[in-house]
């Protein structure tokens, strides 16, 4: 009797397992004759809210093409989810959280559709994105697999109260000014021998993406807009990179940045550090979690002899269409819908994120928003001087190599900046060579 039960249980179990291993099922269309497309936005509250509004409008005005919005499944990173989805052929039709640094992985596997194959791509893209910037989003084969959507330039946030209390009137513009102000701002407020207010702080663990908020934007700023590679050759082993390592080495060795981990919350929100390097998304965070905090935004500090505009990196997130789609033309129509000026205004209003547009400061549609949000104007002004990522493979490993050297040199002062940059470049070349 028990055996018969066991057999039955095993049969049911086997059927369930085999059913689970079945191939992806097409989602039933809400009504016959309607095309259904799946759209994955980023899984944060503001972007879900934005996507919800846009999809609602689209579905009302386009009865023949139904969009099903589903935030990207939560994981350690969007890139992991998308790679797993490409491997499992479970990608959506459209995704608006494509990080250019990971694009090579997706295109190498044939996971994305080249958007420039749509006849109106050039006219739509050039009406929105400055030509010079658009070029940086083309892959090595000349195709454009991503539509530049939002730029989010990384800038310096500073705590006005902490600056004022230390006798600092304005945000530092150069390394010397930063270090001079840091000397005043960094202090022990309760006399216990421990520093309570720091000029700045960075996660000291050698985690590759942390360098996207210190070394990389500072290098772009110091070098006048250069990225790590030029025509697929490693070119960051220059004087600018050495100056950046030297600057951070001084920040740590003079005690202006702690060589430790902060516990119990964001030290900028807790007013334990006076400066913070982040994108415009931070404005909403500060307003929500530290409403009384007096803060300003300024371009990143640059070497004392720097000439010309101050560039930075942007935490670019773009839109792509996956090659698993059976309706590329309809998907492209939806992409165009997402990037209209009206919907870029919604991106600003709901998410406080900067669209990649050349007319942010001139288009009257955006004037009211920037008038109401003067801080965001700074990000809009910075947007034209923002660089993305090089379209090369293995960027994560390359940033890991830089991270290791940054830690040894800048954080722990065990190597000279020139030596550390030379070693980082050597390792980068080995990585590129190995992976060719």
């Amino acid at each position, binding site marked *: 009797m028990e055996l018969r039960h066991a057999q039955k249980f095993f049969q049911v179990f086997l059927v369930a397992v085999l059913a689970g291993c079945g191939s992806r099922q097409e989602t039933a269309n809400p009504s016959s004759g309607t095309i259904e497309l799946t759209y994955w936005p980023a899984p944060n509250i503001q972007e879900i809210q934005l996507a919800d509004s846009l999809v609602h409008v689209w579905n009302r005005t386009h009865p023949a093409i139904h969009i099903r919005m589903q935030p990207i499944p939560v994981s350690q990173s969007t890139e992991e989810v998308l790679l797993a989805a490409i491997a499992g052929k479970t990608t959506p039709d459209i995704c608006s959280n494509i990080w250019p640094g990971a694009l090579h992985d997706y295109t190498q596997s044939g996971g994305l559709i080249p958007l420039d194959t749509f006849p109106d791509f050039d006219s739509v893209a050039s009406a929105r994105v400055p030509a010079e910037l658009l070029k940086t989003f083309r892959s090595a084969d000349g195709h454009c697999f991503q539509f530049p959507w939002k730029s989010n330039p990384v800038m310096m946030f500073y705590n006005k109260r902490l600056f004022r209390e230390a006798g600092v009137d304005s945000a530092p513009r150069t390394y010397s000014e930063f270090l001079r102000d840091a000397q005043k701002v960094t202090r022990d407020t309760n006399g216990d021998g421990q520093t309570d207010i720091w000029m700045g702080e960075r996660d000291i663990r050698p985690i590759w993406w942390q360098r996207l908020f210190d070394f990389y934007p500072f290098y772009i700023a110091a070098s006048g807009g250069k990225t790590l590679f030029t025509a697929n050759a490693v070119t960051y082993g220059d004087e600018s990179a050495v100056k950046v390592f030297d600057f951070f080495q001084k920040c740590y060795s003079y005690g202006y940045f702690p060589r430790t*981990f902060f516990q119990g919350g964001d030290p900028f929100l807790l007013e334990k550090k006076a400066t913070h390097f982040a994108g415009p998304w931070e404005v909403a965070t500060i307003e929500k979690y530290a409403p009384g905090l007096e803060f300003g935004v300024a371009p990143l500090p640059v070497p004392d002899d720097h000439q010309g505009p101050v560039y930075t990196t942007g935490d670019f997130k773009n839109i792509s269409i996956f090659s698993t789609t059976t309706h590329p033309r309809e998907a492209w129509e939806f992409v165009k819908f997402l990037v209209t000026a009206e919907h870029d205004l919604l991106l600003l209003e709901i998410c406080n994120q900067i669209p990649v547009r050349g007319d942010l400061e001139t288009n009257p549609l955006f004037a009211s928003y920037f008038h109401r949000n003067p801080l965001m104007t700074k990000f809009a002004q910075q947007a034209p001087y923002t660089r993305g990522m090089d379209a090369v493979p293995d960027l*994560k490993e390359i940033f890991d190599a830089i991270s290791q050297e940054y830690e040894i040199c800048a954080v722990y002062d*065990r190597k000279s900046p020139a030596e550390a940059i030379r070693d980082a470049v050597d390792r980068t070349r080995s990585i590129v060579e190995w992976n060719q």
Partner: protein
Amino acid sequence: MRGRYLSVKRKNDRQAYLFVMPYVLYFLAFVAYPLIFSIVLMFNRWNIVTPMEWIGIRNFVRMIHDPLFFKSLGNTIIFLLIHIPLQVVVALGLAILLNAKLKFRFFFRAVYFMPVVVSGVVVTILWQQLYSFDYGILNNILSSIGLPRIPWLVDAAYAMPSIAIMATWKNVGIYIVLFLVGLQNIPAELYEAASLDGASKAKKFFHVTLPMLNPTIIAIVILSTIGGFSLFIEPYVLTGGGPMQSTLSTMLYIYNQAFYFDHMGYAATLGIVFAIIILTVVGIQRRVIEAET
């Protein structure tokens, strides 16, 4: 008669196969298939999304020239050298205490075992708070008695010993249980005979308890070695492998290669080589300890 016997036997065989089948399926899916796949991967380049590319022994060549792999091996050995003796001494000491006729000894046994059942990530986050340079309880205690603060996790000299202390605390409960079983299996007559011979407590410990616990010690050293080689959660959560790669364990390095950098072939090569190293070390260890005893 023989026909009936065969029919019953066949039925029994069928039942036996049915009962072992779930494990066989599990073994095929989660042990045999990954192992064979890893061996295939060793000779290929693969980043999950693109087709595999046959590269012969290039993954091995890369491994031989990879200083970080050898650095991670060195770090793992340093961890083992601190962790294993500490684990054995602490577990044995506590087991002897808990074997004595103490009040509430069952309560204390449960308390010492508790970290074993708590998630490794939770324990690690807890210790991150304890080890914090500026705000940690340990440094606050040191400061309050006039001693300097210790950079537990942010100095290359302290980071790995700090992790070893934490790992010992996390796992000590299971080894206390093993030692308690060993201690309770020592015949009381041996202690009585030693007492009649006038042996002191220390002599009883070194000449009765310790030799009788040898099989348990062997088991604990081997288990600690295998556990120590798989050091991952602690450096992953606490230090990310830093400072200056001093806590980059081999498992963490393999994980980074596979899941950060998508070098599945290279990670498989490191994984298989590392498994061979573990087997060799455990084999040598076993022979040496058995020969000694």
